[in-house]
């Protein structure tokens, strides 16, 4: 009887630990901003999928390009049709690792600096990226935040000749995700 009880407790503890390693969200936010001579461009996406394995540090993001919302409908049309070609390349992804994951105590509330490395795919082009961000660990989960710049030319996104020099060649990307423990 004692052995059976011990086995059950061990299995439950293992399951609890396994579940606690995976944190997910399907409603993360990614926004981008650029301030060019012609106009400022800003868009938000609140439908971002993200998962983090706190044991291995593996982290993924996936976002549908047609979920980006712009202030101006015309900008949104141009973004989807002429710049990122959303019909041809419907999503962007990041697959990488939190390289300093062992330095983060996910059982202790607090703010931790994180270094993330991986592959970012936009417009069908994959580039290696190394960025910094923060994790705020709390009882609600892990609040991940990062802000970084990318050059749109790196992702083969061409700016029409008529507006070359009037639209910023780099855009600032902000990531804001509230990752919660995955319960099966």
């Amino acid at each position: 009887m004692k052995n059976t009880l011990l086995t059950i407790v061990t299995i439950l503890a293992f399951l609890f630990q396994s579940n606690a390693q995976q944190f997910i969200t399907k409603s993360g936010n990614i926004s981008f901003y650029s301030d060019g001579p012609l106009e400022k461009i800003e868009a938000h996406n609140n439908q971002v999928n993200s998962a983090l394995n706190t044991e291995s540090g593996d982290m993924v993001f996936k976002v549908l390009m047609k979920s980006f919302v712009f202030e101006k409908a015309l900008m949104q049309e141009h973004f989807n049709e002429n710049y990122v070609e959303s019909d041809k390349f419907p999503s962007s992804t990041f697959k990488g690792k939190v390289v300093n994951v062992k330095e983060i105590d996910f059982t202790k509330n607090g703010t931790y600096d994180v270094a993330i490395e991986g592959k970012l795919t936009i417009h069908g082009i994959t580039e290696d990226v190394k960025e910094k961000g923060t994790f705020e660990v709390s009882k609600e989960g892990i609040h991940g935040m990062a802000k970084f710049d990318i050059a749109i030319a790196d992702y083969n996104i061409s700016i029409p000749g008529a507006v070359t020099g009037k639209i910023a060649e780099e855009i600032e990307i902000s990531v804001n995700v509230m990752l919660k423990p995955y319960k099966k």
Partner: protein
Amino acid sequence: MKNWLKVIGFAIIVGSIGLTYAWFFIYNKPHDDIEKAKPDYIISATECYQHYVAGKNNELENYTGTVLQIVGVPTSIEKNDSLAVIVFAFDSGMYGDEGIRCTMLPSHNEKANNISLSEKVTIKGYCSGYNDTDVILEQCSIINNNN
């Protein structure tokens, strides 16, 4: 008045009208009102999910970028900040439940929070595609509850 002055005056008036039109109706044209838009497709939630999972979304029948009206029995309602999301789950994977996620217009949040999870509901929204786990519908409105 000399003829060339009349021509210039006419050109200025026509140009001004053109610029005003372009400013208001092209550059600053409003976003489509999905709540009032006529749906491009009316299907069941199951059909919609299976369409994407089976890889049937193609040029001939492409739901992405269209206004979809779906009917089905929701499995959960999520509240994220000020957004309500009605979920139709059909499967499970690395991100948890997989199915259709309908983000409601703020004006439909209250209705969304009051729907019953045992009753059919009809929802209309803009389909932004399938992210390999879920079909995403945005700016959704509840058409009616079908008991």
